[in-house]
């Protein structure tokens, strides 16, 4: 089972957000999806999740274009978006129960899964509190639980560590590796390059909507004579001299 993007483009109000992107994410691997702000990562994620349509090109999962049966594709996909969009008036338990029902999961099994996941993510005691009272990290855990409930074949993680405490972040890191080992297709987007370097075997780097690198981290490091993924990223996707910019900022606020 493979996720495959073929020449996918997307334009918003005339601006090309995603420009002829092609890559594959095979099962059993964690594919890191990197790029600076505005490079088109989240737009690509939303297109793969079926939230927005592609402008051109094709997205295939398991060899089938997802647009042929978007509902079936969503049944097999778990998506953790960058922003935690939830029904804040519901409690965490109510929200997850609603997600399970909308995914037509058997009530007994989904109840056990929700209960177990909430315990493992230390949310069980707060399950009856409204989501509006949750912290950012707690909301992120709810999103993660909702994305995992139906045991998806494809897991799209867009900045999944946002707001998570250290222990949960460590659990999540191990979890995605465990899921990859069980044959899931995982596309993982994060600005924490160190984490990506630890969990991903290969990365796709976007710059201004275009793919500038699609290779294993090891190969990229060797190719770019770089010690870390951060250095590779700096060479490929950063246009600024970060040290010079930081000096200028420090000087500016002193004037």
């Amino acid at each position, binding site marked *: 089972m493979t996720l495959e993007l073929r020449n996918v483009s997307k334009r918003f109000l005339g601006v090309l957000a995603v420009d002829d992107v092609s890559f594959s994410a095979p099962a059993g691997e964690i594919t890191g999806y990197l790029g600076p702000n505005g490079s088109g990562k989240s737009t690509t994620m939303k297109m793969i*999740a079926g939230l927005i349509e592609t402008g051109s090109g094709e997205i295939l999962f398991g060899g089938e274009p997802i647009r042929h049966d978007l509902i*079936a594709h969503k049944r097999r996909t778990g998506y953790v978006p960058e922003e935690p969009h939830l*029904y804040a*008036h519901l409690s965490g338990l109510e929200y997850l129960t609603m997600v399970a029902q*909308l995914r037509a999961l058997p009530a007994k099994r989904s109840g056990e899964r929700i209960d177990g996941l909430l315990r493992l993510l230390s949310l069980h005691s707060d399950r009856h509190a409204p989501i*509006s009272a949750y912290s950012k990290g707690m909301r992120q855990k709810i999103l993660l639980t909702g*994305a995992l409930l139906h045991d998806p074949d494809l897991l799209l993680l867009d900045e999944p560590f946002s707001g998570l405490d250290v222990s949960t972040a460590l659990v999540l890191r191990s979890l995605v590796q465990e899921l990859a080992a069980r044959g899931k297709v995982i596309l993982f987007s994060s600005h924490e390059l160190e984490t990506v370097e630890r969990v991903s075997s290969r990365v796709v780097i976007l710059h201004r909507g275009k793919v500038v690198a699609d290779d294993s981290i090891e190969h990229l490091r060797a190719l770019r004579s770089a010690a870390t993924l951060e250095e590779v990223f700096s060479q490929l996707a950063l246009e600024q001299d970060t040290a010079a910019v930081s000096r200028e900022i420090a000087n500016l606020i002193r004037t």
Partner: protein
Amino acid sequence: MKKLQFRVLYREFLFRIVDLELLSAHAEGDSRTLLGQLASILVFFGVILGAGAGLWAASVRGGALPPLMQMAGAWTMEHFLIATTMLVVGLFAVLRWESTFPDKRDVLVLGPLPVRASTLFLAKVVAVATALGLTLALLHGLAGIAWPLALAQYDSTPAPALAFDPPIPPVHVADFPSVMNRDIAPMLRRLDLAAADGGAGIVIGVSEHGVRRVMTYGAAKPDSLFEIGSITKTFTGLLLAQMAVQGKLDLRDPVRELLPPGVAAAPKGFEITLLDLATHHSGLPGMPDNPGPGDLRERLTNYHASDLYDFIRRHGVAKSTHEKFAYSNLGFTVLGAALASRAGTSYPDLVQRQITGPLGMKDTAISLPPELRSRLMQGYAFDSRPTPAWDLDAFASAGGIRSTAGDMLTYLEAQLHPERSPFAAALVRSQRISRPRRRRHGHCPRLDVRPG
């Protein structure tokens, strides 16, 4: 699966019709508590409306409400129920119309889930429809059952369906009583002339070429006196015409010049003339602002010349360039006071001297001596309760005359045949007094009194 999804989304959207994020502080996150509180409020009002039906039914059965009040009550309640239903539907349409469409939050939350857009949209529409139906059911459920049952007891005979009779052929005076008895008597019976103490009555006088016929119903006798109300204003208008014919005044005279010295100062702009007062174009309000306390009768009967002059001193006699018609009892009160002042007598005396005396209307007066008072009909208020006579003082020139059917026929015959009366020219003049037609641009200057 679609059915399950519909049920889940329908429940979610139904609870969300009330903006839970806005009100959740009160509900402490429990949407059911909040919705329960709202439902309780609606049911509370619904019970009050329903209880109103019970009270109304009891009043109708007990005969506490006269037929006219029953009719007014029934119509008012029907209109109220219809109006509140429309109000609720309208409020929903205005406040929650956007609830029928998925918003950004719905797209972001439900978009990644395998839910069809049609299921989502249908759940939204049905949730809004349910909320609207529930609101109406809670508010009007009880009243909707109770009021039709209560109104079913209401006898709608006081409001017969509209029917148009063929034109009535001309009737001679001699035949009039039988025609009246046939056509009007059934209606008069329904008016409940017996009233509380049997004192109510109607008198009808007819004159044809000098042949008179006076018919009485209920407690009325042919020589019974009635308060003729605003017909008095025609007497005041006739007095004005008489004094104009006699050269004692001009219709264009400012009223200020007729009032006692010091009552009104000359205004800077246009000022009220006698013609303005007689044609309800003075711009004066219907009633003064300084009557004493009490009900309408008490306020009118206790209003005296000193009160009127006090009002004029404060209000002044100015008018705008283009005063529109506005019926004013106060205007005729001022006119009567001005005419009496110019004649150097009281208004009742002026009426007696100028009109009722020359016409021989011995049973017509404002202040009644005991013999006339004994024949004055008992008056009844809207609710059929007896009301004391209205002995007007300053307001007499607007509605204070009492008269009999016979005297009123005399007055009518004088109006119909001015040439036979002792003041033919004045009667003709009074019948021709009217506002001059306004020119296309501005007021007719002939009848305006300019300053200076």
